[in-house]
């Protein structure tokens, strides 16, 4: 049988541990990438609470909230996929991971619809656009809205790509029951993307 672990690792167990730890550290790095944005958001809001309130009341709360639901369900299907792999049911895992990726696509579609609606109203980042001539909203709220949801959307996109790639590898038996940790890594990343949204959503749409 083909060796399941790379030559420089003592065993598959050590290799899996290394990969998991590496992923967790990478997730921390991602967290700090967003830390700068959350800081900007919090400080700008502290600076101009009224303008932010105005902006938020106009945000697409319903669409944003539907997207929250989509992402939470996708996290659930991803976790189910991991569980299926652990139970050595690769076919079930394949479909669950693919479902997760599809939900990511739904999220992005809704996001684009949301952007289109705002752009139509003349709301553009940086206080550009006709909207700001007649409204008292803080341009900064909208700039940060586009910036943060946009960078989050890029992460969703990358995550989708990783999910599809992993699903294909599960299908092709390149990831098997013994090496199921490789699926865990991608799903961990997906959960982080969800985690970021769990905080972005109330801060940008709700309160």
């Amino acid at each position, binding site marked *: 049988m083909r060796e399941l672990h790379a030559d420089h*690792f003592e065993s598959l167990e050590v290799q899996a541990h290394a990969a998991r730890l*590496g992923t967790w550290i990478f997730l921390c790095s991602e967290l700090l990438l967003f830390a*700068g944005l959350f800081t900007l958001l919090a400080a700008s809001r502290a600076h101009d609470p009224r303008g932010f309130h105005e902006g938020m009341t106009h945000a697409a709360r319903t669409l944003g909230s539907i997207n929250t639901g989509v992402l939470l369900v996708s996290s659930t299907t991803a976790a189910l996929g991991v569980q299926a792999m652990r139970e050595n049911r690769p076919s079930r895992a394949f479909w669950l991971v693919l479902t997760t990726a599809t939900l990511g696509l739904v999220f992005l579609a809704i996001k684009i619809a949301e952007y289109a609606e705002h752009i139509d109203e003349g709301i553009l980042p940086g206080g550009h656009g006709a909207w700001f001539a007649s409204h008292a909203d803080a341009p900064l709220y909208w700039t940060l809205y586009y910036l943060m949801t946009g960078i989050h959307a890029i992460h969703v996109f990358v995550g989708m790509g990783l999910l599809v790639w992993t699903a294909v590898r599960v299908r092709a038996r390149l990831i098997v029951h013994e090496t199921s940790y490789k699926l865990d890594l991608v799903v961990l990343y997906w959960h982080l993307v969800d985690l970021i949204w769990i905080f972005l959503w109330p801060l940008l749409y709700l309160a």
Partner: protein
Amino acid sequence: MSYLTVDKTVRSWLLTTDHKRIGILYLGAVLTMMALGGLFAMLIRIEHLTPGPTIVSAYTYNRLFTLHGITMVWLFMIPSIPTTFGNFLLPVMIGAKEVAFPRLNLASFWIYVAGALVTLGAMLAGGVDTGWTFYTPYSASSPSAVVPTVIGIFIVGWSTIITGINFIVTVHTMRARGVTWMRMPLFVWAIYGTSIIQVLATPVLGMSLLLVGVDHYLQWGLFDPARGGDPVLYQHLFWFYSHPAVYIMILPAMGVISEVIPTFAHKNPYSYRAIVYSTLGIAFVGFLTWGHHMFVAGMSRFDAGAFGILSMMVAIFSAVKVFTWSLSFKQGAIVLKTPLLYAFLFLFLFIFGGMTGVAVATMSLDVHWHDTYFVVAHFHFIMVGGTLTGFLAGLHYWFPKMFGRMYDETIGVISVILVFVGFVGTFLPQFLLGNAGMPRRYYDYAPRFQPLHVASTIGALVLASGLVLTLYNFVRALRRGEHAPDNPWQSRSYEWLTASPPPKENFTKSPSFSLDPYAYDQPLENAHA
């Protein structure tokens, strides 16, 4: 058969996943960057020989000091020690065959090269005149090539993060038998602490530079007060990375010193644990001090006070290190060789730079010195005096390990003297200039400052000659240096318990270490892999 001779094709070097070869590739790259940054520095110093225009225009001058800063900080000092000695030695020092993710390691090198090329390309496309700090709102409206430059640095940041993750995971998962946490060589601890900072701080820099790029390119006004943005917030984000970045530069150098001193004093460090805990202490407290760059930037008095106090805490950990190193010489059998001379130089410059650091962290004094040559001299003492001397100490110390040849000791000693005289000659006048009121980054200056500027330029020339001599010494050694024995310094540290240069697998069989790496009270025969 050593890692150097196992396969000699160019392809086998450029696509290698051997951490030792990647270390050598990085060495070539960072030395090139150092030469480039040094060239910019010399041009700046020559420009300052006379007040008013000397050799370049004001705009070119602004771009020169920016490029000097960017090249030296991100392309030389940040990667210098971790990517070269870290890559080469960290796995050897813990008895591993490889780093945890060899292919990622290679990717990290090429990402670094790509980022460096984009950054240097931006220099050709007009350069940047904002200073390496990219302060807003000017950086959003500067006519220079801000966007390609920040993209280049962003890419280099990826390389830094990947290397950091790789090292942390390697230390956690790849240690050989006998290498417990409290028996790792101190250099490994230093690289470990550095990697933590790299992984957690670099993304914040990446994001803030990206936002500067967006502000410049799309005019979003994120940091533009005219549109409700806050330029001081940019400074918060920037220094949240860029202050810990100083520790990314200095911690690895401290690691080198912690190896050199026991080896050449032939004695265990006075307290292994004190060095380990102060390394981790610096890594953490380094994150709490960024605000001392912003005392006069309009930050609130509350924050300024908090940051002033927190900044001084770093001095506690640094002092613990300095005292431990000094005490390590006690009852040692000291052998004065080039690496140890560089370690002395490090101690001197670090104490001097560190003490002036405590001085500028004092708010009332900072008001006087802020944005003057005093600050320039202070951070060059720490960053160049620390990182460069640590880097040079390491190069001399591990040169036989990396290449299996010995450099010439006499030339080595002469170059240490030149570097010392040149360095102090360059930056001591700058302390005086700053205290007398000469602002940093100014093209022109009052005639009364000229003697000190000329002195500084002469110092820089001496420093450059010392570095060129060092380079000559290494090139000479590569071509016709004596063949090095496996352990020329009689060290007990683990990397010396294998052949020099090491075989591709680092150790001929899976090692298991019986003694700790500083067991100088035991005969050398007892220390084996």
